[in-house]
């Protein structure tokens, strides 16, 4: 099978999967969903997400190794690798409950611990890469302080609107605190992404742009998935949006893997696969 055919087949498969998951959210009564259950869709999502997370982890780690210890970007890539590994571990826990034991995961579960740790590490990595870019001495773009403050204020208000109903929810303090922490971390991540976006803007046209634009989109989709999840958690009638959440996370992890792969390619001058074949 040539690379072109393989690429086309994967693209077609991706489009089909996207259509099925989008359709589940938009037209849940469509005939196809009498045959394709939510359980089956969850299996498919997991089977895409898990390898994507592992591939992302492998490439991000490889990128960190290639940067070397003295390079400030290495720490950020080690962090991105840890983020993807922790999310993969969280996936294993949640998939075990949902797909193997066929019951909802308890709240909190070990999966939450992995997810939250992953989020914190990811935010730390975003801060680390911005510091590395700033230390480079290169012109990484400017964002007015007013712009950042205005964006942070907007995000804070939106997050407050999401978190406030949690306070009045039934459940233990731990459960409510856990449900509040996810949107709070999303908010912090989005502010870090806003700052990273300035670098992405000035990198336009260069090969490094593809790396950072892809990672920016990946993490944005992860935050969006999380926020939509928080909404249907509180409003049971929105449960059909679960397919959208799966779609957002699936795209996020695939893009993260792609970004890490692109970073490796950029450092090699050729694709990592080709480099390996050449003994590189």
């Amino acid at each position, binding site marked *: 099978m040539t690379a072109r055919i393989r690429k086309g087949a994967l693209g077609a498969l991706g489009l089909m999967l996207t259509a099925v998951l989008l359709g589940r959210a938009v037209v849940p009564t469509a005939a196809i969903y009498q045959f394709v259950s939510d359980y089956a869709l969850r299996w498919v999502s997991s089977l895409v997400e898990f390898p994507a997370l592992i591939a992302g982890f492998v490439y991000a780690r490889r990128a960190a190794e*290639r*940067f*070397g210890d003295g*390079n*400030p*970007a290495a720490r950020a890539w080690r962090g991105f690798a840890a983020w993807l590994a922790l999310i993969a571990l969280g996936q294993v826990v949640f998939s075990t409950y949902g797909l193997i034991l066929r019951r909802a995961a308890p709240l909190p579960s070990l999966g939450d611990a992995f997810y939250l740790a992953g989020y914190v590490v990811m935010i730390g990595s975003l801060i680390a890469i911005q510091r*590395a*870019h700033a*230390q*480079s*001495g*290169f*012109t*990484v*773009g400017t964002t007015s302080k007013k712009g950042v403050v205005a964006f942070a204020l907007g995000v804070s208000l939106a997050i407050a609107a999401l978190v406030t109903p949690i306070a009045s929810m039934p459940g233990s303090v731990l459960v409510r605190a856990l449900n509040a922490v996810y949107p709070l971390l999303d908010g912090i991540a989005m502010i870090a992404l806003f700052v990273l976006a300035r670098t992405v803007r*000035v*990198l*336009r*046209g*260069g*090969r*490094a*742009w593809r790396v950072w634009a892809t990672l920016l989109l990946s993490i944005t989709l992860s935050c969006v998935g999380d926020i939509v999840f928080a909404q249907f958690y509180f409003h049971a009638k929105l449960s059909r949006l679960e397919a959208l959440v799966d779609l957002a996370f699936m795209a996020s992890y695939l893009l993260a893997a792609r970004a890490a792969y692109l970073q490796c390619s*950029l*450092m*090699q*001058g050729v694709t990592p696969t080709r480099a390996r074949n050449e003994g590189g």
Partner: protein
Amino acid sequence: MALIVDALATDLGRTMARASVEGIAARLGLKAPLTRDEQATLLRALSPGLAVFVGKAAAEQTLFEVHVRLGLGGVK
């Protein structure tokens, strides 16, 4: 400086490449047209920053090629 900007633009895009080369040259007190020594100094100064985006090996390779194209010899 145009040749250096062109070389860096492949990886960093033209906007960042131009702003960074001009910014670092200004920090070093260099003004166009640059002498051969100044060109070599500028290339050395660009290396650590470029390495943050593409890694040390790729940065050195890119700047080595510029060295050669500028006729500065193969000295990195």
